[in-house]
């Protein structure tokens, strides 16, 4: 068997990918449980199935690079380093949450980690990413802006306006489309005249690439290459990562519009077990070592839930705070 993983990165790093994917999955599945119990309310959009994109992409970026995303952003925040305890507390609406309980699931933010927000208006993050890239270049900072978004978002005016703008002003923006083939119940070919999303950048002369978003190494390699290009040229680049969400659009969606066969096909490509298999087959980790990691991840998420449960609610007076500087 050809070695796909060995030597891409040191073993420790490769194992860390598994840990990050596992903690993300575990976090999401516990969120579902806490939602069912009524501890998490409002909209809850889970990322299960798409972990390879957040993990591979984040590893391909520098810590100083900005990350922006939509409302399905728990994993992107956690993988960047946001404390899972404070993310879970945010979802519970507690004062100890990353946004003091004011943001909720769709609006995580941690500027200390350059995680510049989850946005719930589809397409809202495009121009903001461009603006952050402009500020970085203006101030002579060595960082790029990575903008995550879904396949449904590419039909917003802001998508086209931002692609054009980033290229026109020559700004370091890396656009990362997580094509999970659906915007709520609408399959991509029913909303986009050109369903092959990465091809849309030709109108703006932005280089683009399509990558298997179920393969963490493929995503890592593509993003690392793209991020370096962006850094080197100071110009935008575009990646389309094809992936799948295993759950409905949100907890309110039973996802009846997808066939069982389609679900099974994608489940068979689940990025976690497939990657674990590779690690074991190439002798990078043993089954036991991975089991230890899994147990550790479960403990991290347990701790996050306990922390959220035990945290205090915000004071009523908090509604008047943090509106103006």
């Amino acid at each position, binding site marked *: 068997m050809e070695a796909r993983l060995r030597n891409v990165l040191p073993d420790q790093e490769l194992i860390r990918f598994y840990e990050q994917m596992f903690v993300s999955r575990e976090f999401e599945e516990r969120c579902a449980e806490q939602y069912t119990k009524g501890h998490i*309310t*409002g*909209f809850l959009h889970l990322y299960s199935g798409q972990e390879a994109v957040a993990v591979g992409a984040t590893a391909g970026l520098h810590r100083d690079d900005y990350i922006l995303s939509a409302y399905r952003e728990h994993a992107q925040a956690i993988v960047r380093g946001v404390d899972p305890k404070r993310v879970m507390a*945010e979802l519970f*609406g*507690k004062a100890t949450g990353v*946004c003091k*309980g*004011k*943001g*909720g*699931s*769709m*609006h995580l933010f941690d500027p200390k980690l350059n995680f510049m927000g989850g*946005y*719930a*208006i*589809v*397409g*809202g993050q495009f121009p903001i990413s461009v603006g952050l890239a402009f500020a970085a270049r203006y101030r002579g900072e060595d960082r790029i802006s990575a903008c995550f978004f879904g396949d*449904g*978002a590419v*039909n*917003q*005016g802001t998508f086209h306006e931002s692609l054009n703008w980033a290229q026109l002003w020559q700004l370091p923006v890396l656009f990362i489309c997580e094509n999970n083939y659906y*915007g*709520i*119940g*609408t399959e991509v070919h*029913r*909303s*986009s005249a050109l369903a092959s999303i990465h091809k849309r950048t030709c109108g703006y002369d932005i280089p683009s690439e399509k990558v298997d978003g179920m393969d963490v190494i493929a995503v890592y390699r593509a993003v690392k290459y793209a991020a370096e290009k962006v850094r080197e040229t100071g110009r935008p680049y575009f990646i389309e990562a094809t992936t799948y969400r295993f759950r409905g659009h949100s907890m309110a969606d039973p996802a009846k*519009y997808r066939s069982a066969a389609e679900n099974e096909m994608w489940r068979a490509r689940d990025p976690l077990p497939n990657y674990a298999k590779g690690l074991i087959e190439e002798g990078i980790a043993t089954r036991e070592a991975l089991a230890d990691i899994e147990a550790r991840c479960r403990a991290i998420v347990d701790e996050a839930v306990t922390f959220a449960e035990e945290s205090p*609610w*915000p*004071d*009523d007076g*908090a*509604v*008047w705070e943090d*509106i103006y500087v």
Partner: protein
Amino acid sequence: MFEMTYRDALNLALKEEMRRDPSVFVLGEDVALYEGSFKVTRGLLAEFGEERVKDTPISENTIIGVSVGAAMGGLRPVAELMTVNFALLAMDQIVNHMAKIRSMFGGQTFLPMTIRMPGGGGSQLGAQHSQSLETYFMHCPGMYVLYPATPADARGLLKSAIRDNNPVIFLEHELLYNSKGEVPEDPEHIIPIGKADVKRLGDHVTIVAYARMTVLALQVAEELAGEGISCEVVDLRSLAPLDEETILESVRKTGRAVVVEECWRTCGLGGEITSRIYEHCFDLLKAPVERVSGLDVPMPYSRKIEKVCIPQPGTIRQAVTKVMTGKY
């Protein structure tokens, strides 16, 4: 009479109007195959087919622009914006185009179109998904703004909106979709645009409200009746045109008024209605008019503090007590 939910009443109105007039068609994000994110368009695709029930890309400004063009071209579009919050992305087509076209072109064309939008807060959807933007639309001349509180009004008003030859913003409250009420069987039972409805008669104080605020006001009126305070509840239904006469008539009778709005207080519709009451009934008032409003803050997610930002029965009660006694 049938008993049905607000959602089903809206659904029935859509079906009845589509059967009645082949130029009516529905478009919006996830309205066809998915049957609407609040399921108001359930069964439409099956009955009317793909030419009349159309899923669109996530392109709000263009959903409205295409509707404007289709209306100008002789159709009767009923667009759904998934929620009112996304109407902000379509404000250019709504305000700069839809509301202006007839007047700007000297009355040579008209736009018989309806834009449905669920809205309101109270479900912990956070700052970007919990807004009450009714005043934004009322502020702009050239279009009507409707916002029903009951299933019967929902059906009757939506039918009026679709039949009307003017552009209509049709708001639906997300927390009312499952509420039930009696709906007349007659498919020609339509509710006229521009007519408020006195939902409860009373003598001591007039509560002016709309949509979910009407439901809360009726609840408070019922409680206070047991305590000897008789509230009259005026449900606006039509925010533009505003039925000033029905409001004033009630206030002339009671001499006291409380205006309840879910939107932000500053420049909200409560301020507008209060000012009209002062303009016309100043001499008759026994107490200053009270306003109960959403707090002037971006909506927080946490349910503990979200409640604080939205009028509750308790806050309405306090306001009524204040106009009755001069103190809280």
